[in-house]
């Protein structure tokens, strides 16, 4: 069992996993995927909260760390498509795609295949950070434009 620590940024409206939370790894078996190693990353919600996993990693046997499918719970096209775009824009990603397993279940399978032996977690983490930066910049630009428009309107009315 390997201990891997992931840090996620808080971006409002996206993954609601706050950073620096301690995560623990449990073993379970998934018949569908025929994998030997499945990692569950759960967040401990409060003192006695139930453990709801936000992100799972599924890796097929025999491949390196570069080809991983992440299962993101409680997500849909809103995060899937925008994250796919950000991850595709990075140089060491060979393949990136997402799919919604079934419209009644709110989870997405997000697959990243890297080249050059880079672990797939790297582009994912970078993509999330960059997405959060983009959204912050868009928000700032929007607020600036709105206040400029408002002051323009006030000038016209005076």
């Amino acid at each position: 069992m390997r201990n891997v620590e992931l840090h996620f940024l808080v971006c409002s409206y996206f993954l609601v996993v706050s950073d620096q939370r301690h995560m623990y790894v449990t073993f379970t078996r998934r018949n569908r995927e025929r994998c030997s190693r499945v990692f569950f990353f759960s967040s401990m919600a409060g003192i006695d909260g139930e453990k709801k996993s936000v992100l799972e990693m599924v890796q097929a046997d025999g491949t390196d760390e570069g080809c991983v499918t992440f299962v993101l719970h409680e997500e849909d096209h809103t995060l899937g498509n925008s994250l796919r775009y950000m991850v595709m824009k990075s140089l060491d990603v060979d393949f990136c795609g997402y799919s919604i397993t079934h419209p009644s279940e709110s989870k997405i399978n997000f697959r990243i295949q890297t080249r050059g032996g880079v672990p797939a977690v790297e582009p994912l983490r970078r993509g999330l950070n960059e997405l959060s930066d983009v959204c912050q910049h868009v928000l700032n630009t929007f607020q600036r434009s709105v206040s400029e428009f408002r002051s323009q309107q006030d000038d016209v009315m005076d």
Partner: protein
Amino acid sequence: KTGAKMAATMSNVDEIRNRVILGEFDIKNVHTTDYPGNYPGYDDTWNLQKFQKNFRIDVVQMDETSLEFDMVGIDAALANAFRRILLAEVPTMAVEKVLIYNNTSIIQDEILAHRLGLIPIKADPRLFEYRSAGDEEGTEIDTIQLQLKIKCTRNPRATKDSADPRELYLNHMVYSKDMKWAPIGNQADVFADANIGPVHGDILLAQLRPGQELDIVMHCVKGIGQDHAKFSPVATASYRLLPEITLMETVEGEKAERLKRCFSPGVIEVENHGGKVVAKVVNSRLDTCSREVLRHDDLKNAVKLARVRDHFICSGVTSHSKNTDC
């Protein structure tokens, strides 16, 4: 980008990267292809500085209920994510629990409760918390209490033989302005100047006749559109790509007039150049891209219809009367 371009068109590669071409039977270059490695000679890796330099937002029109602005330099995936978030993940306050103490009108309880839930409530959701799961009563930090108590009576002052319900009865139409705010806890002090209640007072809820009455208490909570559409802050949020119309050859005379009629009004103007009338693209933003011009055999080769891939004209209409940034 809205001017007429009769000069040389851009190179093929640029066109595939930047324009969505509207053809007669299909639409070409729909998907984003500028990922690193696709085009030799182009560096398409994500660069925040390059994005920040090219990105801009221009607010075109803004008033109490609607907003139209342009986002230039962003990809469709992100623009769509913003649109989805506006519709489904921006919280508002709406009626969730309806406690019906007396309802003798002909509107059934559940129908009336459904109608009450859909009424937009004027309250800033940022000042409230979400209700914790399993909490039935609600506290002052997460609930707004509204009351609707109305009884229909016969109008004693009506003339003997009038048939107009407006004269015969008092309170026979129940409007949303009859919903009154009942502050709980310290809400009366905290929200003293923000008059909490329905945004519009003229929404008809029910009709009554003498002897029928409604005695209802409503609890409003904070929620998001994903849970129920009543929590969606926008009536709708949509975007479209900026159209671009390029004239490939000079169009003059009677053909120019026909060309003008193929587009939405204001897109193509006909000008007089030395005795001949010539068509000129004035404002392609107004076009609705109906591709009508491609139905005319003699005009379809004169025009190239395209959309600019990273220029989004976004518009949103809200029913909640606050147009702050979402």
